[in-house]
């Protein structure tokens, strides 16, 4: 009896992870970390020094009146300011439901102001617009699913980014990656010989484990071209290794390009530098066409999928991508469904699944992702909300790419996600599966900040580790 009482008392004393997150948020608040007004960013601070009133007015009106048309007009004139979009946004939910972070609140602070003032903004107001559009919205499009009128707020905030890009007022880190795209056709300034060297190095490494493995470079007429984001050769080469091992095991006929076009990532899309985006996407499609492959298979990245499947093609005048393409979620799903990849032994835990906005709201791949995760683990335990209604990781839409100055704001502005994860942790789930690099980046920071002690896995991580490997020694 006394032992039971003692146990109950100690169980009460032990804080749940949800309580830990809330306590951390309290201390963040007390330390003033939720005040973001003084964040410095050289790209913004130096950028606005070069502005003149005429330039601001000309550029804003050029975009709002010249480039935008019926959609912007319909959205602005239809919005009845009902605030129903608010609950959709993790920035709003995480910042104590401060209305300035609600989707419509962000539109009010940017496009409405631009329209009301007919483009006559001060440089400080332009800076504020850039901050809002680049660091307070992930363009995750969840609010579209919560607005009765389906008003595309992401489109409007992307338009603000475009205006800021044309004015030369974009956060420095993401602008830097856009420059890299423009100069090298990849996000990380990886040079052509470095790229091929990296592939050969990974092939060499993999031969210890898979003696006959190849990473076929520039093989014409293969079934598919595999494209990755530039951070893979730069920082996460093991992911290329893993993908090669999976394709090898499944007996795929595949290739990677030798020349620029191998990188499918696209920060220019997110800064609003659509001219650079168009060049980058054109090179990517052309690489696949030159190799005469049947399709493009993309690595586990969300934003790149959006860029290749949904955005870049339109800028270039293609209704759909000029060459068929699939995300690796779909590709893995097919490999497992067709029995080309088999599970040797399941990952010995139940996991939860974080849906990347760009693969669920961008392609409806939530069930395929779960199919793969279920096949290689003891099962998926659902977060809530989930699937196409999942809360964003707060890294996507280029927000994590705005770099260190904005990290604290980014992490604190996703307390909502931390609470969601903490509830899973309290249920005994220690592992999150998420098929997107950006989601990993964002979730890792949140896990670390709030002390959640959870592990993150790509689908490829699970498949690589737990598949049947006939060729392996």
């Amino acid at each position, binding site marked *: 009896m006394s032992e039971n009482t003692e146990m109950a008392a100690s169980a009460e004393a032990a804080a749940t992870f949800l309580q830990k997150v809330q306590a951390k948020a309290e201390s963040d608040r007390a330390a003033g970390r939720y005040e973001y007004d003084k964040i410095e960013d050289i790209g913004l601070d130096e950028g606005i020094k070069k502005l003149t009133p005429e330039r601001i007015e000309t550029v804003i009106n050029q975009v709002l009146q010249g480039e935008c048309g019926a959609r912007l007009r319909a959205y602005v004139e239809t919005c009845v300011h009902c605030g129903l979009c608010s609950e959709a946004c993790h920035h709003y939910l995480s910042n104590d439901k401060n209305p*300035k972070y609600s989707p419509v609140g962000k539109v009010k602070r940017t496009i409405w102001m631009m329209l009301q003032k007919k483009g006559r903004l001060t440089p400080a107001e332009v800076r504020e617009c850039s901050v809002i559009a680049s660091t307070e919205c992930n363009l995750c499009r969840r609010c579209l699913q919560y607005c009765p009128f389906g008003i595309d707020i992401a489109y409007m905030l992307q338009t603000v980014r475009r205006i800021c890009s044309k004015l030369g007022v974009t956060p420095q880190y993401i602008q830097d990656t856009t420059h890299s795209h423009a100069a090298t056709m990849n996000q990380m300034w990886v040079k052509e010989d470095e790229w091929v060297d990296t592939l050969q190095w990974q092939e060499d490494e993999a031969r210890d484990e898979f003696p006959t493995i190849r990473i076929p470079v520039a093989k014409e007429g293969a079934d598919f071209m595999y494209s990755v984001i530039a951070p893979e050769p730069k920082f996460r080469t093991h992911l290329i290794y893993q993908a090669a091992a999976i394709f090898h095991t499944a007996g795929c006929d595949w290739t990677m390009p030798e020349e620029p076009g191998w990188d499918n990532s696209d920060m220019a899309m997110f800064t609003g530098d659509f001219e650079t985006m168009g060049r980058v996407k054109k090179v990517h499609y052309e690489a696949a066409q030159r190799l005469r492959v049947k399709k493009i298979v993309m690595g586990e990245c969300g934003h790149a999928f959006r860029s290749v499947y949904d955005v870049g093609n339109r800028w270039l005048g293609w209704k759909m991508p000029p060459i068929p393409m699939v995300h690796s979620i779909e590709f893995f799903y097919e490999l497992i469904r067709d029995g080309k990849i088999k599970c040797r032994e399941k990952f010995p835990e139940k996991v939860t699944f974080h849906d990347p906005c760009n693969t669920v709201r961008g392609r409806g791949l939530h069930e395929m992702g779960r199919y793969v995760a279920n096949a290689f683990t003891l099962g998926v335990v659902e977060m809530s909300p989930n699937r196409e209604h999942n809360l964003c990781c707060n890294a996507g839409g280029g927000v994590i790419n705005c770099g260190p100055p904005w990290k604290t704001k980014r992490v604190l502005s996703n307390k909502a996600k931390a609470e969601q994860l903490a509830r899973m942790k309290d249920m005994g789930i220690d592992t999150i599966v998420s098929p997107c690099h950006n989601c990993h980046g964002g979730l890792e920071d949140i896990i670390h900040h709030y002390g959640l002690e959870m592990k993150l896995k790509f689908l490829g991580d699970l498949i690589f580790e737990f598949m049947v490997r006939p060729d392996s020694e």
Partner: protein
Amino acid sequence: MQSLYNFVSGPLVWVAFIVFIGGSVWRLASLLSLAKKKDTYVFEYWSWSHVFSSIGHWLTPFGSTNWRMQPVMSVVTFVFHIGLILVPIFTMGHIVLLEEGALGWSWPTLPDQVADIAAFIVLGGCAYFAWRRFALPQVKFVTSPSDFGILAVVAAPFLTGIMAYHHIGDPLLVTTLHVLAGELMLVCIPFTRLAHMLYFVFTRGYTASEFGAVRHVKDW
């Protein structure tokens, strides 16, 4: 007073309907022609099956995730809009006027009591929406005087209609104000945010087309 009444319930009705219908057609036509000129992709991606499916969900009470998350707002929104549409069209007094007036048409009416209750519901809806604008920070933040203006424009014909029906105030004055208020609302529809009545199909429809046909995912 009688001559003013005769004017607002005679020629001015025609003017109001011409402005309402003509204005709506013009607003829609100009929106579509602008889309054709600058947003051709709207037509390229438009998918009627997804439009119907999505709008069907959004026009069904609790048919979308957000409607389920906001039960009070959902119920008020639905009964408000139903009343807003039914009362003017199916009230005995209006149909009698139309039948006796130039049109000579008529159709079934709502029982007076039902119409009366519906009118009160619409007024109650206006009051609720106004309360939200004061009380909920996320609504207050994006509220401007024009939002109250629109609510007033919507509330006025129902308030005066109720007054006329319940014989509150001078009958001729109240009836004249009622007709004027109704005309004002009609005229405002194409030229204010009340145009969401017209544009809703296009904004939700385009999002539905993109979500459904391109991205293969639900938008409700």
